């Protein structure tokens, strides 16, 4: 783990080794405390504290009005949140699983993303949609999806995916403060601890991960900025969410001096960081859990070849989920684990 840069470390006076749920909870707690316009709601979010417990204790602390349960209608949740945001509030809504965001898709694509533009800034919809995504938990087809590419294609929406508690908290605070609508996909497989993609290896809880210290107070991680997780000379690996940890493990497994970049924000992506790294290494492997065709890896691949064509020494490779739904029994055959990523790393080295 190399989760923090030097300047960030300065703020760690009062910090604790939170897991990702605690970090998210802390971000919400802080923002509910700082800004009376912040409120949070969603299915089972209130008294129960959310099925993943991200809002635990918040209703008790801030009252029924600030953190509450909603009817089971993702369209209604997002539609009303848009109305609130145009009033001047900063709603943070939870969609219980990213697989269930589609009934609210029209409100995101046609409304939240467009309101500023179509009204020439007369109205804006500063709101945050949090939703757990990704596989690795035997969730089957509808508790494992990675639909991020369906959002990166939508102009007007910011798409964010953290890979560790520090970023999850800092990015969530940035999202809530952002004047644009932000969708944060939370890698649910990482809630309790980093996961390198070895299903049989026991998981280390975040609390025991070296260097995992999350400040108790307010701080932000900027939107639109990637982070280099592992420096390397030979190949650039572009990853986000759970795949960041898989990529680091794969570099070790392959014995390749890979530079692993955690994108953190997918749209707008940190092109500068990507280009600088690929120009240095001359090689690139892209990793994501989502279905390959038209996944966000396609955009990354296109960007890299557009901006680094003359630096590339081998084809850019994509290691991704297959073009199938996520099959319950084949979790580890579907999940792009370190062995598949390592193979790509070796392959890209021979060109």
């Amino acid at each position: 783990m190399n989760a923090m840069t030097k300047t960030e470390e300065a703020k760690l006076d009062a910090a604790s080794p939170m897991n990702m749920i605690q970090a998210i909870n802390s971000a919400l707690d802080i923002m509910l405390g700082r800004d009376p316009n912040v409120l949070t709601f969603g299915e089972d979010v209130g008294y129960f504290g959310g099925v993943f417990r991200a809002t635990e204790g918040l209703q008790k602390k801030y009252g029924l009005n600030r953190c509450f349960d909603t009817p089971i209608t993702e369209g209604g949740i997002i539609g009303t949140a848009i109305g609130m945001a145009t009033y001047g509030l900063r709603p943070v809504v939870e969609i219980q699983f990213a697989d269930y965001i589609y009934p609210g898709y029209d409100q995101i694509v046609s409304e939240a993303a467009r309101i500023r533009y179509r009204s020439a800034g007369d109205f804006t919809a500063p709101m945050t949609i949090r939703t757990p995504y990704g596989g690795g938990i035997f969730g089957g087809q509808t508790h494992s999806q990675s639909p991020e590419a369906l959002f990166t294609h939508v102009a007007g929406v910011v798409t964010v995916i953290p890979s560790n508690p520090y970023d999850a908290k800092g990015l969530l605070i940035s999202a809530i403060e952002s004047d644009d609508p932000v969708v944060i996909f939370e890698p649910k497989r990482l809630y309790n601890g980093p996961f390198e993609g070895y299903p049989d290896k026991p998981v280390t809880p975040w609390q025991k991960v070296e260097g995992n210290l999350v400040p108790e107070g307010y701080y932000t991680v900027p939107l639109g900025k990637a982070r280099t997780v592992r420096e390397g000379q030979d190949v650039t690996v572009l990853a986000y969410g759970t795949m960041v940890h898989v990529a680091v493990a794969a570099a070790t497994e392959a014995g390749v001096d890979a530079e692993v970049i955690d994108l953190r924000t997918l749209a707008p992506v940190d092109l500068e960081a990507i280009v600088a790294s690929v120009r240095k290494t001359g090689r690139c492997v892209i990793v994501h859990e989502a279905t390959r065709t038209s996944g966000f890896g396609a955009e990354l691949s296109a960007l890299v070849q557009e901006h680094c064509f003359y630096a590339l020494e081998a084809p850019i490779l994509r290691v991704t989920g297959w073009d199938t739904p996520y099959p319950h029994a084949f979790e580890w055959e579907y999940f792009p684990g370190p062995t598949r990523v390592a193979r790509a790393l070796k392959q890209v080295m021979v060109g």
Partner: protein
Amino acid sequence: MASTRTAPPAKGLKNSRALSLRIPEPRFRPGEKADFSSLVIPEAGATPRPEVDTAPKDMRELAYGMIRVLDRDGQPVGPWNPKLDPATLKRGLKTMMLTRAYDDRMYRAQRQGKTSFYMKCTGEEAVAAAAAMVLTREDMCFPTYRQQGLLIARDYPLVDMMNQVYSNAKDPMKGRQLPVMYSSKKDGFFTISGNLGTQVPQAVGWAMASAYKGDDKIAATWIGDGSTAEGDFHEAMIFASVYRAPVILNIVNNQWAISSFHGIAGGEDATFASRAIGYNLPALRVDGNDFLAVYAATEWAAERARSNLGATLIEHYTYRAEGHSTSDDPSRYRPTDEGKIWPLGDPIERLKQHLIALGEWSDDKQQALYEELVELVRAAGRESETHGTLHAGERPSIKTMFEDVYKEMDWRLVEQRQELGI
């Protein structure tokens, strides 16, 4: 146990009657003679007016009645008479007439190629005009494309409306929106969406925000009869009911959704107002062509919302007297005279008749006002056209095309703007 029965075996032994599908059809098609004599329309004054704090379950019948104030002779009758003074009535009349004059000009402008598209609200002017007078500018209206009357009632400059329709250099929407998709926050007019139904949960959310803040603003939203079929409508009703949002949910039942009659939206067997019943929301059904009735119903619903009693659904029973838009030709799907024999008449005519019956108005005054408003619109049109029309004259600056996607332009938009060479 001779009187007992066995469950049928899992296979067979069914009633073998062949099923069939029912596809609703309007009663009259082009070439046929429309005839509304069998339409059941309650008499003016007949529908009772409960107190606003009545429990919804005790006033379900309102969803099947019809609030009507003006009788055949233009006299106000019954408990819903809002008892407005002549000055207020004249303001209402003027708003409706100005709306119609504005529509007429912009429709012609589209026909002249000055813009791509236009939508009139002819015959439905009372719906927006009366509501705008009940609500304040601090309240927020979430309209469809057929409530331009809200802006006109609030004296929003006609020139600015036209600038939007023309997507010209002074278009407040910077050329980004289809014509008629206005937005004016300061006038309590929400940015109109091209996607039907989406504004309804937004209005509920906005109203919830006001209540959340302990403010006193309420929201109102309008949706067409056809569009009530969208899931958004139902989702909005649930939120409005569960959180008791201070919002007025208006359904403008103008009988048609482009070429589909109200029966295709489920409006033949049940009233649209009755949709509220399953959510324990009160529903009013209103003669939408009776300015006084719309006024009174809106006032009742607003009072209910402001008293923290929650949402009300209002079905405005009216008729879309013209085509859906400049892209439509209604003579292809309904008798051309249907609108003329529509039993609830024309809202402008009816309010005029009422003012005359009060001794406050005359045909001459009506004609004079009409000419004055046409001239007002013409002058605004001339001014607006100096700033350009869609295909001629000035446009907004092209570089604004890349602005307002996000608060700040990111590298993608900067790069793309450069690619376009501006």
